[in-house]
């Protein structure tokens, strides 16, 4: 296998009780690749990317992230997670800390940066998402969009090798979406690998190296955006795309 594979999933399967959420997932991601995952609600997109930093355990198959195989008895799960940033659908900011602290704690407690250095890093990324002026507010005092941007900044502060986004732009207004996507694009140029669950087809078209379409736990189709949008192979994908393009 080539050296620059950063995520490899082989025959991954996962069940919730009797319900199979993921079936036969085979996926490889190269360093610096930007992947967009889309698909209908409940198709297992969130579950899949949560397996990549082992917030969820898979029951069959193999997942290798950054050269480390994820399994039940691993010791270095923190090592994996340190290098895999995650932006949640529901933000999950730490409500008892200011925005600034939210961004500072990762670098401080994991990387051992001093408070001053961590603050500098934090402010840099808060500026990148255009909310440095909110640094001393508490999360609950921000609008939904502002909160989502803090969540992105918090992940970026750890300067991870891989970023997982779970619908990072869903609560943002269109202006902010494009700013955040710009940030993401520039990060991608720095060599950061990204897996992004999103329905922003515009973004997928513009930025993604590959688009993956999931349906009821399976990867139904994958391909470069051009092929994916203009010439979808599967009926299900075509239906999905037609719905999107309708409005």
């Amino acid at each position, binding site marked *: 296998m080539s050296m620059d594979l950063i995520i490899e999933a082989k025959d991954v399967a996962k069940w919730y009780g009797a319900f199979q959420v993921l079936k036969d997932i085979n996926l490889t991601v190269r360093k610096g690749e930007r992947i967009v995952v889309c698909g209908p609600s409940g198709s297992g997109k969130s579950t899949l990317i949560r397996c990549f930093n082992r917030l969820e355990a898979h029951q069959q198959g193999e997942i290798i992230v950054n050269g480390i195989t994820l399994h039940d008895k691993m010791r270095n799960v923190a090592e994996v997670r340190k290098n895999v940033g995650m932006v949640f659908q529901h933000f*999950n900011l730490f409500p008892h800390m200011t925005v600034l602290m939210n961004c500072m704690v990762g670098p401080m407690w994991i990387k051992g940066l001093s408070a001053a250095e961590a603050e500098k890093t934090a402010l840099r990324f808060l500026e990148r998402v255009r909310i440095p002026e909110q640094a001393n507010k508490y999360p609950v*005092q921000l609008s939904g969009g502002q909160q989502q941007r803090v969540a992105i900044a918090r992940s970026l502060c750890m300067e991870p090798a891989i970023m997982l986004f779970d619908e990072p732009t869903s609560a943002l207004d269109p202006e902010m979406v494009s700013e955040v996507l710009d940030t993401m694009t520039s990060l991608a140029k720095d060599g950061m690998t990204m897996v992004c669950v999103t329905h922003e087809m515009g973004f997928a078209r513009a930025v993604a190296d590959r688009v993956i379409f999931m349906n009821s736990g399976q990867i139904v189709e994958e391909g470069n955006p051009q092929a994916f949008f203009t010439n979808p192979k599967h009926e299900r994908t075509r239906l999905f795309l037609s719905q999107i393009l309708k409005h």
Partner: protein
Amino acid sequence: MLYPDTVEAEVLVHKPWFVAMMFAIILAVFLAFNLTGTVMGELMRPVIGDPLQSGLYGRFAVAFVVAVIFSLNVVLIGFAPLKVQVAIVWLELLGLFLAFFETFHLSLPFIWQKLPFLITQGAVTTLYVSAISIVIASVIAILGAVAKLSTNGFAYAIASFYTSFFRGLPLLMQVYLIYLGLPQLGFVIDAVPAGILALSLCYGAYMTEIFRSGIQSIDRGQWEASRSIGFGFGITMRRIILPQALPVIIPPTGNQFISMLKDSSLVSVIGVWELMFLARTLGQKTFQHMEMLISTAMIYWIMSICLELIQSRIERHYARSKVR
């Protein structure tokens, strides 16, 4: 404060029907209880003649006056701003209770004479025994809560046995067991350490449950966020989960602190001269134990008001991040 609705309620006590109802109820209550024999009746002597002879008329007159005074008081207080209202009602209630204590005909000089000893010996002992015990109990509680929530069989079994046993047995029994039982195993332990040990173990068990529920109340999204950054269990617990659990933990813990103050009196059975022990003994000879009990109660009350104030400051501190 509850999250208040955006619609202001009218001031209830200024609505005529409410005032009328209040007046009627009080009138009825005081008609039912004959107050003519009390100070109230005495004060009304010019109007009703000899209170004891005044019969139904006297009774009605007294009840009427009481009801008028009460209603007027309430209506007037209703005009004041919130803080003043609270202060006035507090003072009035305090006054009522002091008047109630008056009915015991307490000897004030005796109280003044014994007060210094009550405070320097009793209150100080009570305070330091409780303070040390609370600190130990809190440490036990955090460990216990984590153990009780863990998937480790040993930790869970030991923690659940611990909480069950030390909550299940009366504190007095625990004091006995430690004071009388440990010597049988070869450790002779003094009264104060034995008391502190018993209190810590017992309250540790209660507080374990409080901490457990606090930790459980935190959304799993917080765990996920913390893990996804790469924080281990220790940091997640200390920096993310516990600080958020504190607002939920503090009020019941405050309860425990306050009741610890009182429960520490159980160590008097092993001869520690704390507040309650002195209260029971100082007045015993001259049969002025009511004096002593009431002054002690007041000292306890003052101590717990201090704890309440501290608690409300801490709560305000943690509420910062919720204000929007």
